[in-house]
């Protein structure tokens, strides 16, 4: 049997370009064609490796010609449900997400060669409300159906994909629903939100559970689904959960609880003063939180994420410049203890010898990271003073060492 011919959308973005590169290097794949409406930057082009690039807007019928001409058998719609880089691009994102998916599905329906379709979706389809069950399985649907935003788009996209599945039952369709993707390279509204400094606003009186998936695992799942034989919907998230306040603290920032009515004015003021922006809608969504069950991912798809939720977040947060480091907190604790005359308890053995040993492994592996051009994140290169640890920048198959910044007891 001849090798696969794969079409990957959204290759100007981190996930799409990395996936294209990974698939192109895979022995079972003959050819990878990355498409996007814009030209990929040098870093993205480097990540694509030996994959071809075709500048095609998926909203243009031209994409059908590409599929036909190349005899594409696997379409990975990696740009679907990808979050816009800024909230101003929201209308544009809807256009790209929903209408782009419709056009792409129309092209796939016409094609005789397409046998596999992977459409990226998001956990936002489950909505987020306080009346939700604690953990969503794939069979559950939203209790409070999102009326707008990425959740709404993803629900629409999934509906179109189901319609496509009815018309083309011969095509294997896999729809991964991703938790929020974080990592040292990806840039999303969420990573920007945690990048606010020194305080990160959150809704007063709310502290929701969050789940993250590392960019490395997200790409791994898409590759696994593209070349595997799983058909259906599957939740994708790192193991475990963390709360929003905990995440803000672990990023070395201070949570700033704001009454939900005050979020809109605050976000406007901060944007006007150029202190960094956040969307109040996004913060309110974070107030409810959402956790997905990943049993199907492990047992039916056969994919085990390498990063837990906390590890994924820590790996992302290591690229931020912390305001409050664990060392500072420890020093304050010791000083306060000294003032009131008590002996401080020992620190958790987190910043101990084990982590340093792990770092030396990372050191060796870091050699091939240069190929990724340092990643898209401007802050990644900066690092923070006093930190001699090398950063995990970029993604590839080898960089799966022990990426923890700190270890939970």
């Amino acid at each position, binding site marked *: 049997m001849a090798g696969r011919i794969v079409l990957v959308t959204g290759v100007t973005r981190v996930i799409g370009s990395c996936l294209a590169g990974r698939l192109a290097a895979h022995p079972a794949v003959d050819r990878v064609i990355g498409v996007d409406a814009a030209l990929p930057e040098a870093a993205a082009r480097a990540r694509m490796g030996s994959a071809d690039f075709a500048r095609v807007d998926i909203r243009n019928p031209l994409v059908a010609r590409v599929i036909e001409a190349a005899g594409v058998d696997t379409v990975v719609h990696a740009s679907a449900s990808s979050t816009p880089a800024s909230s101003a691009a929201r209308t544009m994102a809807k256009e790209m997400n929903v209408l782009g998916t419709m056009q792409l599905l129309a092209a796939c329906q016409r094609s005789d060669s397409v046998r596999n379709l992977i459409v990226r979706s998001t956990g936002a389809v489950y909505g987020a409300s306080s009346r*939700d069950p604690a953990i969503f399985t794939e069979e559950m649907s939203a209790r409070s159906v999102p009326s707008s935003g990425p959740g709404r788009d993803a629900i629409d996209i999934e509906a179109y994909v189901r319609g496509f599945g009815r018309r083309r039952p011969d095509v294997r369709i896999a729809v991964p629903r991703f938790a929020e993707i974080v990592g040292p390279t990806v840039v999303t509204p969420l990573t920007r939100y945690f990048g606010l400094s020194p305080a990160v606003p959150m809704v007063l009186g709310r502290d929701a559970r969050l789940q993250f998936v590392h960019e490395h695992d997200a790409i791994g799942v898409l590759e696994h689904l593209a070349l595997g034989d799983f058909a259906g919907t599957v939740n994708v998230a790192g193991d475990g959960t963390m709360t929003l306040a905990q995440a803000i603290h*672990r990023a070395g920032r201070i949570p700033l609880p704001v009454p939900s009515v005050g979020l809109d004015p605050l976000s406007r003021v901060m944007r006007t003063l150029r202190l960094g922006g956040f969307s109040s809608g996004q913060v309110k969504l974070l107030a409810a939180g959402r956790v997905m069950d990943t049993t199907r991912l492990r047992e039916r798809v056969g994919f085990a994420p390498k990063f837990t939720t906390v590890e994924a977040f820590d790996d992302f947060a290591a690229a931020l410049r912390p305001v409050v480091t664990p060392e500072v907190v420890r020093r304050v604790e010791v000083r306060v203890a000294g003032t009131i005359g008590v002996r401080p*308890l020992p620190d958790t053995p987190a910043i101990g010898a084990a982590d340093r040993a792990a770092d030396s492994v990372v050191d060796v592996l870091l050699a091939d990271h240069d190929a990724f051009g340092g990643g898209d994140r401007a802050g990644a290169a900066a690092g923070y003073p006093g930190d001699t640890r090398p950063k995990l920048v970029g993604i590839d198959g080898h960089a799966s060492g022990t990426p923890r910044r700190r270890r939970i007891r």
Partner: protein
Amino acid sequence: MSGQDGVRPAPHPVSRVASEAQTSERDGGTAVAGTDAPSGRRVRGPRSAPGVPEGQSTSVAAPAVAVPAVDEENTETGWRRGLAGSLAFLRRRMTGEYQVDDFGYDADFTDHVVVPPLKVLYEKWFRIETVGMENIPDTGGALLVANHSGTVAVDALMTAVAVREHHPMRRALRMLGADLVFQTPFLGPFARKMGNTLACNPDAERLLSTGELVAVFPEGFKGVGKPYSQRYRLQRFGRGGFVTAAMKTGVPIIPVSIVGAEEIYPMIGNIKPLARALGFPYFPVTPTFPLLGPLGMVPLPSKWIIEFGEPIPTTGFGDNAADDPMVVFNITDRVRETIQQTLYRLLLRRGHPFLG
């Protein structure tokens, strides 16, 4: 013994070592860097102790080199250890070094913030007595079904403290709460951190199948918000969803009867328009609230007894019994009857509501 160590300086190193031998066991081999300092008390300040290097605090701040056997430093007892523990807790809060499970249960927070004040209430205020703790298994799932009363759901908190502090395995009790609890700001996240979750079958079954102890109060607001005149009379038990959850996961049901909670806030009236306006299920009037304002929120010190009854098995009813309404209703009734009869028995045994 707590005061002694703090006030009196150690007369001789040998006697200090002897006293450490007692405490070191409890300290569990925790050690701090900078064990070169002669005594734990010296941390107070370099000024009073010229022998201690100036950088005492920074030497502690340096990455802790674990020396588990040497435990010379931890001679603190009582409130000193408590304070140090609180500081360490605050540090973990500030750095995010704690874990929550998929339901949001934060054991560190529960142990350090929630349980200590509740324990005082449990032991000193309500003088709670437990009966039948041996009916709660040491491991594996079980569904505790209890009566609900008291205007404010203090009975749920006390049941959780009972299982947490007085069961030999000190098990965590995962309670199922009403929608309203999780919608309310502050209360919602607080309830989640304590390990509680929304009363719905997927959550209950998930907890039970992972071997957790789950508690449910099927009377809900009807039980908590009933007038004092109806005390110790069980309200309706919902649709029996809790029985279905127990049957599907094959865990036993443990009937729990709580006597004493009815008297903490005797509800003699209900201002319904105010309740509607505020979105509460009821707005209570007690002999002290709202008459005495915030002071009226102090619960009356009734005497409590919590009895954990004999487990009622939910297996052996054949296949698909969980979908058979007849079986479900029968078990629901049996649980309800057991709790009602136990309540009457415990009431007789308790005697006066406030003495004893």
